[in-house]
Each structure stands twice: as C-alpha cells, then as structure tokens.
C-alpha cells in the first residue's frame, strides 16, 4: 500500500467508511498479532491487544498525523497497550533468571515426547525471547520479524540508531546463548533418562 493510497483510505475511514477501515484491519492484523505474540509470549494477550489497538486507532483517525505511516502509529499504540498490560500482569519473580533455568524442571517424559517437535522448538524460542529485556526483544522482533529498518525502529522507540544497533546485537547474542543453554539442558536430561 503506497502512502497516497493509505492516506486516501484514512480519509475515507475517518469519514465513516467501514470498508476502508476493514482494509486496514485485514492488512495489519496479522503483522501486529505476530509482533505481540513474540513480545508477550501469550497468544490470548496478543489477540486482546490487537483488538484494543485497532479500536483506539480507528476511533481516533481524525488525530492521525500524516507525516507518519499508519503502521507505525498502530504499532506505537499497541506497544503502549502491551507495556501497560505487561506491567499489570508482571510476575513476582525475575523472569530472566527463572525462565533461563526452566528447562531443568521439565519432566523427562514430556521432554522425550516433544523433543523433536516444532512445538518444543517454538517453546524454546519463546522462552529465549522472554529472557531478553523488553528493548532487546522489541528491536529484535521489529528488525528480524517485521523487517523494519533501523532508522524506523529508532524513530518508533525514540532512541538513537546506534543505541538500537547496540540493543540488536546484544539481543541476538543473548538469544543465541539462551537457545544454546536450553538445548544443552534438554540434551543433558535426555542423556540422564535414556
């Protein structure tokens, strides 16, 4: 969708055209949901935030600043909603430490059953992602999942591009380490119980 098309659609939706609003929802709901699933690790929370973000954006289209892309605005609203929701449902323990050790507590039977499955890999990736800081996770997801350029991420998060790159590199490093630790633990458990 070009910027001109996007602007035309926004004008139509702001004037009450439901079809135009529907185009936006269909175009961005998948991307936004993927981003939020990776950010939160919880599909239900991601779905709720997708709905809330669209409702807010579509109810306030007359406030849209045409200098920015619709997607950037939508993701900004969604990010705020996610941070609020995450703050409300924050666990009492340190997620980074507990989740990094969580592999040890898996039962051997379960590990053996799902060791090779995609679900297991997805679960490991989710755990590894959740062990990153919010900034590292968000930058990693926006860059590698959403294919946003560094300058756009910097604008979105209101931080210098150098800082974004620094977070990106550190995030990749920690993600790699977390995945290695998980697979090592799983392998160790397999060896002990086999």
């Amino acid at each position, binding site marked *: 969708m070009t910027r001109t098309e996007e602007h035309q659609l926004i004008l139509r939706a702001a004037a009450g055209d439901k079809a135009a609003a529907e185009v936006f929802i269909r175009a961005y709901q998948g991307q936004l*949901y993927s981003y939020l*699933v990776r950010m939160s690790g919880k599909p239900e929370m991601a779905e709720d935030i997708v709905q809330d973000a669209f409702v807010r954006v579509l109810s306030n289209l007359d406030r849209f600043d045409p200098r920015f892309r619709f997607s950037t605005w939508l993701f900004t609203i969604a990010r705020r909603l996610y941070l609020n929701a995450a703050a409300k449902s924050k666990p009492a323990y340190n997620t980074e430490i507990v989740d990094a050790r969580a592999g040890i507590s898996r039962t051997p039977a379960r590990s053996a059953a799902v060791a090779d499955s995609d679900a297991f890999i997805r679960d490991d990736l989710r755990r590894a992602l959740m062990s990153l800081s919010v900034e590292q996770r968000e930058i990693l997801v926006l860059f590698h999942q959403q294919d946003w350029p560094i300058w756009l991420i910097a604008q979105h998060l209101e931080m210098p591009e150098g800082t974004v790159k620094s977070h990106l590199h550190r995030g990749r490093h920690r993600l790699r380490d977390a995945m290695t630790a998980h697979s090592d633990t799983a392998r160790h458990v397999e060896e002990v119980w086999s």
Partner: protein
Amino acid sequence: MSRLPSKQVRRLLDGALDGDLDAPSKAHLSDLLRADPVLRESFAAERRLLAALKEAEQPRDLTGPILGRVQQHRGFLSRSARLRVWGWRAGIAASLLMAVGAVMFFERSYPSRSPWTDPSGPVGDVVNTVRADAASGAQALAAAGDALQGRLAGPLASVGSPRPHLSRRPELPLGDTSVYDGRVTFRVAADPHLPSGGIGPRQARAWVRAVGAPGAEDGFVVTTARWQGRPAGLSDPRALRSDWEAGAAVRTHDEASALERSWWLRFWMNAQPAPVQSLER
C-alpha cells in the same frame, strides 16, 4: 556453536545479519565461512533461529469484533458529527440545570403557589411531615439539653458562688430588682406612663445602683436617650434616679475614660432603692 568467534568475525557476522556489509566485507566473510565449517554451521543456525521469529501463528480474523467495537464507540462518526453529539449533550445538561434553577427561583419567590409547599397536595404532605419531624426532633434535643443543664446546675449552685447570679437579660421590666452585669446594654421594657388613680399618667422612674464593684464609688455613668451622667446632689453617689422611656437604651460606662466597664448593677423600677448596706453581694 561451542567455539566462540573472534570479535572481528563477530562484527562481520553482525554486519551480515544487519545487512550492512559492503562488497569487500561480504567477500571476506564468505571466505571465512568456506574455510571454517563450524563457523559456517553456527552462522546458519543463527539465521535459522532468526528466521523462526517470523513463523508466528496467525490470529483468527478479528475484523468483525474490531468493527463492532469501533461502532459501539461511534468511531465512524466524523469529527464534526462527534462535536454535534457533544453539543447536544451539553445543551441537554444546560437545559436541565436551567429548569432546576427556575423551579428553585419560583419556590423562593412564590412559596404559597409552589406545588411543593401546598399542604393539600401529596408532595406538600410529605414536606410538612418532614418539617414536623425535624421540628419535634429539635425540640426533643433542646429538652434533653435543658434537663442536662438543670441536673448540672443544681449541684454546682449548691457549692456556692461568691458572686451573685448575674442576669444578662437585655430588658428592664417594671419593678425589676435583679442584679445585672453593667456591660449589658438594656432596653427599657416598661411602659413609662403608669396609671395614677385619676390624677393623670405618671412618668416611670428607675434607680440604678452599683453593687460591690471595686471603684464603684468613683462613679459610673448611665446613658439614656435623654440624659447622661450622674446627677449631683443625691445623697447616695452610687444611686441614680432617672426617667425612662420605653425602648430607650440604658448603658453604663466609666465616667473618667468613657469606656464601658463591668459593674454589677441593681435596678429598681418605680420603687425606692434599698439602703446600701442591705444589698446582697
């Protein structure tokens, strides 16, 4: 992944993942990867891992629920339409306020015509009942207060006070011989014209005497509407005879400084004052 690449190689790998490498750096990295199978495998695993980030589940279609909620929030109204809605709301609120204000004004200006105070109407009955309840409640409270005061006053009075009980009533009735606090400004309540058995009306008279106050002998001033001061020639300097008029203010104050002072005074209306020695303190 067991062998960690050097910082320089790591920088090249990060550059490749960021998509920032220029042509010579790309060629150099390709050479490195070709020469080192472990590094090649490690880099490939990292790329697979980052690619897996894109493999998120897709949500169910949320178009319907979202549009429904936007509709509930009137999100599809234009700005001007939304302003009109707010304008209507503000107008209705203002009209309600004005109506309430008008009713209150009418109630105050024409209480007899007000349907709320009409005793024959149902609302009037309720209002009257509430008022009666409030009045009886207040009376009961006052009676309880008086009873309590009476209970307390008895024992306290029996202890005995060196000072006489001072009346602070602001009126001087005919024949009153109470002791008053001189700081009170009195109003003469007695009719100054008394029947005199057919001879004609006689002017009411009063005598004022200071009672036991220090320095009372130095003289005090009684002020009435027609006269102020202490008449000379009286045998008792603490006594004053004056003609009174109904409604006249009687005030006592210091003769020298003209400031109001506290005397205990005894008044006699149309009666001769008792001898000084027999006055109660």
